[in-house]
């Protein structure tokens, strides 16, 4: 992997450039616009994107507008059902549930999105390299994946986070989850790449003198985008649940901080007696997972040039 050729398609924007490469520019531009057009026509994806944006605003702007944060306040009457002052009620200890929900959504989103970005990028690259080179490189790389997959996640988490001093922050949680979940992506991508690498267009690129890095980045990964996106959206859902179980075991995000998983955990016994503690975080988790899923669908279709532009 000696040289990584930049996609040198747009010429340096010097004013003196005599020919501004009309075809080339418009080609690049046209591709992006096509992807955007296809995505915009995907109804569910667009609706989901809207909902997700609202959720993000709620989680990150909400705390600035709402008088109560996620901590205990003396002024709050404990254990109250929803009212005008506390639309989602209050907890035993005296939290405002809406305040908790904002902070919890924020932490959960941060963890889930970080995990999915890190694990997908790393896992896809790992899988593509293993599948492209095959042979002993593949054998070694995939044995590493196998080992990581059989280590019970929570044991490993316990071992690692036990050594992290001074409480566990959201990014530490995200890093740990990512460390153990990129393997699923790697497996998926390797499988796809194994069959892609036999296709003639890969050989054509090699015959043109393309470096291995170029083949992996420009040919293999884009063609593996569909299955990768599917795996990545699943990963978001699992990382939300993983974070919750880590919190439960005392390794994840800890009180006084809060996450959606932790909120559900705290409200486990109250699902029937005080449903306002249980359902809001539960519904938020379901909603985040669903929207991400639909956005993934839309993205997958939008990136596939063979999809015709039709409403669905």
């Amino acid at each position, binding site marked *: 992997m000696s040289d990584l050729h930049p996609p040198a*398609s747009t010429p340096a924007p010097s004013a003196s450039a005599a020919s501004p490469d009309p*075809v080339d520019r*418009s*080609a690049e531009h046209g591709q992006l616009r096509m992807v955007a057009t296809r995505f915009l026509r995907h109804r569910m994806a667009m609706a989901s994107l809207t909902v997700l944006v609202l959720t993000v605003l709620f989680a990150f702007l909400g705390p600035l507008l709402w008088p109560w944060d996620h901590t205990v306040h003396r002024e709050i009457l404990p254990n109250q059902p929803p009212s005008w002052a506390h639309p989602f009620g209050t907890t035993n200890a005296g939290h405002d549930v809406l305040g908790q929900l904002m902070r919890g959504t924020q932490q959960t989103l941060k963890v889930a999105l970080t995990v999915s970005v890190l694990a997908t990028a790393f896992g896809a690259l790992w899988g593509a390299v293993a599948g492209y080179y095959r042979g002993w490189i593949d054998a070694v790389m995939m044995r590493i994946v196998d080992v990581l997959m059989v280590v019970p996640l929570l044991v490993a988490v316990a071992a690692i986070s036990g050594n992290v001093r001074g409480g566990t922050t959201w990014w530490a949680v995200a890093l740990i989850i990512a460390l153990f979940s990129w393997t699923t992506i790697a497996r998926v991508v390797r499988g796809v790449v194994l069959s892609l690498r036999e*296709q003639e267009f890969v*050989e054509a690129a090699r015959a*043109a*003198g393309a470096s291995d890095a170029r083949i992996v980045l420009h040919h293999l990964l884009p063609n593996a985008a569909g299955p990768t996106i599917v795996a990545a959206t699943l990963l978001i859902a699992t990382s939300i649940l993983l974070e919750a179980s880590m919190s439960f075991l005392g390794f994840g995000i800890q009180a006084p901080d809060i996450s959606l998983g932790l909120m559900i955990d705290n409200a486990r016994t109250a699902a029937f007696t005080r449903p306002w503690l249980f359902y809001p975080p539960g519904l938020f988790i379901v909603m985040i997972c669903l929207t991400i899923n639909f956005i993934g669908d839309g993205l997958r279709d939008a990136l596939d040039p063979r999809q015709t532009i039709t409403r669905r």
Partner: protein
Amino acid sequence: MTSTNHAPNPATAAADAPVLSVTDLHVRIPTSEGDVHAVRGISYHLRRGEALGIVGESGSGKSVSALAVLGLLPRTARVSGSIQVAGYEVVGRKDAELTRIRGARVAMVFQDPLTSLNPVHPIGTQITEAIHAHRDVSRAAARERAVELLRTVGIPQPEQRIDAYPHELSGGMRQRVVLAIAMANDPDVIIADEPTTALDVTVQAQVLDALQAARRATGAALVLITHDLGIAAGHVDRVAVMYAGRIVETGSVDEVFSSPQMPYTLGLLGSQPRMDAAPHSRLVPIPGAPPSPDHQLSGCAFAPRCPLAKPVCRTSTPQLTAVSDTHAAACHFADQLAGIRPEELFASNTAPSANPLPEAVERTRSRGEPVLVAEGLVKHFPVRSKGLIRRRSGEIHAVCDVSLTLHAHQTLALVGESGCGKSTTARMLLNLIPPTRGRVSYRGQTLTGLSSSRMRPLRRSMQIVFQDPFASLDPRMTVFDAVAEPLRVHGQFRNGGAERVRELFRLVGLDPAHGNRYPHEFSGGQRQRVGIARALALEPEVLVLDEPVSALDVSVQAGVINLLEELQERLGLSYLFVSHDLAVVRHLADQVAVMYLGRIVETAPVERLFTAAAHPYTQALISAVPIPDPRRERARQRIVLRGDVPSPMHPPSGCRFRTRCPVFARLTEAEQARCATEVPTLADHGNDHAVACHYAVPRSPLGDAFPPHRTP
């Protein structure tokens, strides 16, 4: 057939009544993009013992019209018109009712013999099952008949083979088994849909022989669907040419081939590469592409591609009109076609430089210095056993001791049947896979063993065009980016790369404005042009063409072949042309190397090969290629090889061809022993002609009686 014990068909009683009568057949198949009007009103009638060939390019509705006869179309298809099998109306019947005639009255042979046999049953069971489905005979009798059928279609040792499973048989044998099943109930009609397209040419000759044997044995009428005009010329009495769902011309083979009365037929004949062509004669491509079947058509469907088209052609649909008693054509201006030659009719469409060369002016391309040289190339692929521990359980001897020299400005063709190692050799020449032994050098510089970064600057001079125009372009890259990729890789894109790409598009006959489209938006021929443009981007000196036209329809293929010839003349390229199609090779090559099972058995200048081939394999290969000329086809002496190509895992000792060699069979024991022990080396016969056979005798495989073909 001696032991047929069923009542005679009522239809055969009336000797001249047609056994298959198709009248005004229309088939519409609904799809998400609207109705596809696949068959748009065809009629034909077939008597017992007659053979009708249906020819046409892919998508012309050949297969759909055949499937309709058996009621095998998708349930959603809407069929109208009438199909009568021995007086029994098929259109409108329920599936269950049709099982009575399937197999018993009409039998079908499909293109792919692997999918039409059940992999879990021995072939004998599948034949007896077919017999029992329509007749009440004892098991022993059915088995006996199965053996007899297998013998008829030319399966050696049928008593033993009857218990074999499909996977134990080669493609050609399987297709013969399918034929035996088709014959099992003495059908009135056998429909064969491209029965040999998946097979090699020497095996194709065997299967076509078996098909004729089946016809003789059953006396059935035959509908032979094919895209190969040569096969039609030699194996049917009448031919129907289909275009866009209609029959546009029909008649006896002699009349249709010698005096076509419809521009499309004329164009097909002109674009078909033929082995008996005059040296280096240009093909005549038909411009444009067939209409897509979901198109609404009015008037003559061929009008957009027809040089004779007048306004009336676009408004009124020409009907099949009799030209003679046995010949009809659907064209408003059929009378203008008398005596006209394809290149005259389509002349306005060939590029100025693509005018047919005067035949007296032999192309005298000076043979330049050696460019690409291979010495003693060997390639073994390991075969690993399945399971946990993947032991090395054997080796495929794909290429064995191959030496080649490609000279500047010349075309060297590498010819052979599938699996003979030609693609592997081509890839080793480009250093895309490392040879097990041997050496490749480009202008004196050894390529073998160079690292990929040392190889990169050399890649500029050597490029490759692949066989499959679908798989060789990245589906997620625009064709502009695909053509630009070599420039980007070599850092040449920044200065004027985009202009260069546009220039390349124009060079191969594509519209530069289509650059931002994706490969799937192009037709096969256009995609292949993109592949050629990509290969030319770096101005290479050597182009390796791995079956560049074998995935294309003839009318489109001719355009690509002409393009390649033109580019060679304009840019002074050297081609290594890998192909299984000798007819195409005849048009393009200067020097030919014939491969069999990993070895080169003969190499000769193209003229010499077709007039004085000396290796028994080359002779058989040439004699197996059909020629689109009914008179010549009937007059030809064929050498039909026995058996199949042996497995490259255990190639025969000595001469690898001896298990099938017709000369070997006639040798004395002492001579045979020599073939079995001593590997024949390429011995020089003078004039660049070398042959690897101990008992080589040159002879003209086409028959000396024929001067080179001149278009009618």
